[in-house]
């Protein structure tokens, strides 16, 4: 990382790190043996080991994507990554049992507090393993299952065997192959038929060590007529060497179910964030991705929905914020496979100090999908001349009855807006912060209040010292 980039992350708020007290730490580098070792360590069934090994071979054979930011992608050194690191004995259900320094980290991040006040359940992952998980008793009594993925595999092997890789096969892309080969941690969530989880459940992902690779794997199944709001947050310390975060998330929304999956990733600027997220929506169900990308050096992430049965609906609201040295290559994919399905994509990006934001979207409407509705809106806001925004919207519509709306805009903050706000007593930085928060408002208003105000504060801090 360049000195400039280091300067840029110098005031990153979550950039502190703990001493590394690893109980198990793998040497750097990736091989079939590493993959097998991870599986053995976890005492996994043979079929899982086999999938891991197949996925590893695919990862090796598969070339790096030649789109997105090739230069940054090719600078990832897979031999300088630690693929497994465990810092605790296991996953606890009481914060008091979590090792002191790890507990302190999550306290600094406000997780136990949030859990008490407004969450239905929490998992907290530190490096490769989930160190804490809990769920409210009333939800447990209703049959809601909320575990870390490793426990999920142990306790619900049949379910995992049925759905693991059914939405995102390892062969989907190079990074889904990598994740499948070395996955560890992540969430396993099942909402039984007709159960509405009113309070959001949250997973928190923290990378602490240098040159760490975090490869969590998440599977959420919402049975017919159920609903859930799942939130994930991510941070890491600021190091001058790179870390890699490559997750796979699979969602299944059965008939009439509703899944909302909200993310605010605020990785430090030395993290490569290469994530595959996809959901399958059955009859009259809804999948919503609310996806905020604030941190990381390079993010490539395109939350996707497959609208498999009639009446299914997809909603993807995303924001990207790219500062110095950052590239957010984000967007969305929706496949309309059935009649009367609808999708709405709203992507907003802000680029500043030479940062780069790209919207990359794909909407496919199959010939059999009659009377679909598609709406894609992309708005980019550039804060200065050095920053960059690109839009790559692809539409493949093979059914004439489909109604498609598409709007894209690129704008700059106008001097008149700033003057107006400053004439009301706000400094230029405050004025800029207000305009930015306003620009992201369609996104923030979808988040729980506590999350939204955190995000607003974060963005205002991003503006501090950035003008002048």
């Amino acid at each position, binding site marked *: 990382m360049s000195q400039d980039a280091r300067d840029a992350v110098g005031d990153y708020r979550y950039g502190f790190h703990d001493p590394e007290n690893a109980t198990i730490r793998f040497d750097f580098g990736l091989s079939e043996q590493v993959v097998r070792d991870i599986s053995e360590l976890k005492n996994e069934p043979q079929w899982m080991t086999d999938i891991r090994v197949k996925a590893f071979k695919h990862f090796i054979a598969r070339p790096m994507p030649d789109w997105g930011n090739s230069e940054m992608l090719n600078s990832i050194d897979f031999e300088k990554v630690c693929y497994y690191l465990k810092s605790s004995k296991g996953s606890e259900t009481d914060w008091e049992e979590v090792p002191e320094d790890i507990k302190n980290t999550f306290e600094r991040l406000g997780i136990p507090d949030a859990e008490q006040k407004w969450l239905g359940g929490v998992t907290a992952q530190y490096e490769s393993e989930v160190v804490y998980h809990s769920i409210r008793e009333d939800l447990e009594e209703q049959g809601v299952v909320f575990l870390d993925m490793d426990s999920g595999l142990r306790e619900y092997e049949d379910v995992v065997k049925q759905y693991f890789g059914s939405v995102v096969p390892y062969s989907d892309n190079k990074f889904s192959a990598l994740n499948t080969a070395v996955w560890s941690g992540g969430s396993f969530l099942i909402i039984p038929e007709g159960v509405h989880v009113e309070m959001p459940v949250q997973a928190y992902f923290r990378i602490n060590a240098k040159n760490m690779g975090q490869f969590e794997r998440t599977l959420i199944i919402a049975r017919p007529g159920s609903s859930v709001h799942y939130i994930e947050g991510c941070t890491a310390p600021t190091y001058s060497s790179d870390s890699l975060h490559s997750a796979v998330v699979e969602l299944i929304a059965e008939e009439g179910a509703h899944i909302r999956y909200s993310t605010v990733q605020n990785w430090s600027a030395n993290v490569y964030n290469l994530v595959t997220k996809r959901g399958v929506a059955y009859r009259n169900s809804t999948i919503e991705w609310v996806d905020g990308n604030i941190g990381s050096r390079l993010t490539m992430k395109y939350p996707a929905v497959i609208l498999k049965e009639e009446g299914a609906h997809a909603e993807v609201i995303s924001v990207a914020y790219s500062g110095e040295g950052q590239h957010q290559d984000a967007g969305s994919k929706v496949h309309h496979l059935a009649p009367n399905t609808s999708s709405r994509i709203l992507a907003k990006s802000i680029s500043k100090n030479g940062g780069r934001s790209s919207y990359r979207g794909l909407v496919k409407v199959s010939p059999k999908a009659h009377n679909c509705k598609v709406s894609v809106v992309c708005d980019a806001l550039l804060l200065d001349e050095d920053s960059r925004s690109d839009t790559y919207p692809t539409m493949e519509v093979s059914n004439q009855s489909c109604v498609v709306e598409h709007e894209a805009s690129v704008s700059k903050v*106008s001097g008149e*807006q700033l003057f107006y706000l400053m004439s009301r007593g706000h400094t230029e930085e405050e004025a800029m912060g207000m305009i930015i928060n306003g620009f992201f*408002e369609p996104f923030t208003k979808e988040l729980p209040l506590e999350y939204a105000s955190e995000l607003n504060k974060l963005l205002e801090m991003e503006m501090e010292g950035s003008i002048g």
Partner: protein
Amino acid sequence: MHSLMKGILAPHLENMLTSCVLSISDLHVSVEGTVVIKGLSLEIQKGEVHAIMGRNGAGKSTLANVLMGHPDYEITQGSIHFNGTPLDELEVFERARAGMFLSFQYPQAIPGVQVGTFLRKSVQAVRKDDCPNNRELRDEMKAAMKILGVDNSFLARYVNDGFSGGEKKRLEILQMLLLKPKLAMLDETDSGLDIDALRMVADGINSISDDAACLVITHYQRLLDHVKPSHVHVMIDGRIVKEGGSELAIQVEDKGYDWLEPTNA
């Protein structure tokens, strides 16, 4: 008068000086290379309401903008003092915090920022010394909104985003009432208002005019029926060409501006 004269004047004269909220002397302003204001002087005391009238393009908004500190306008000659402080020492936000307020001719939309939040943040920024607590602020807002005939749903809307002309002007006055300025400049706040709205806006101005100095830019006598100006100035081509009392506004409404052209005078 110049602030340097402070201290060498007799105490009663000094008092007069300090009650002089705005003092402009021989102001020249250019924008984009053209001179728009060409030697303008004006003094406003606390409790006075000064009306400025003049044709389109005469330089009225330029004057308001330059007073508020718009970066596009360059003062090439002359000086402006606000409560004795040379204005060029103050940034835009400092002018606001010192008690200057401009009701814009064309208020800007800030999409995604709710009126309620914006008002609260602005009050906190400007009224640092007597900042009301949340409850007091809510009461103040209620009272101000009542004067202006707007209801609570107004607070949840985004600042000027999709507002009608009249709604924008009401929001400007609402801000003025809450920010409690020492100098209120209103640039065509009466334009495009229906009769009822005009009366409400006038009530708003009247409710602060005892404690503030007001500079009201208008094309119409209409507003001045409700807001009694102590002084009326006619501006032509970047200069004040005539000053008078409220009767001057009636004459202008009657006869237009031709008779005031320097060449016709």
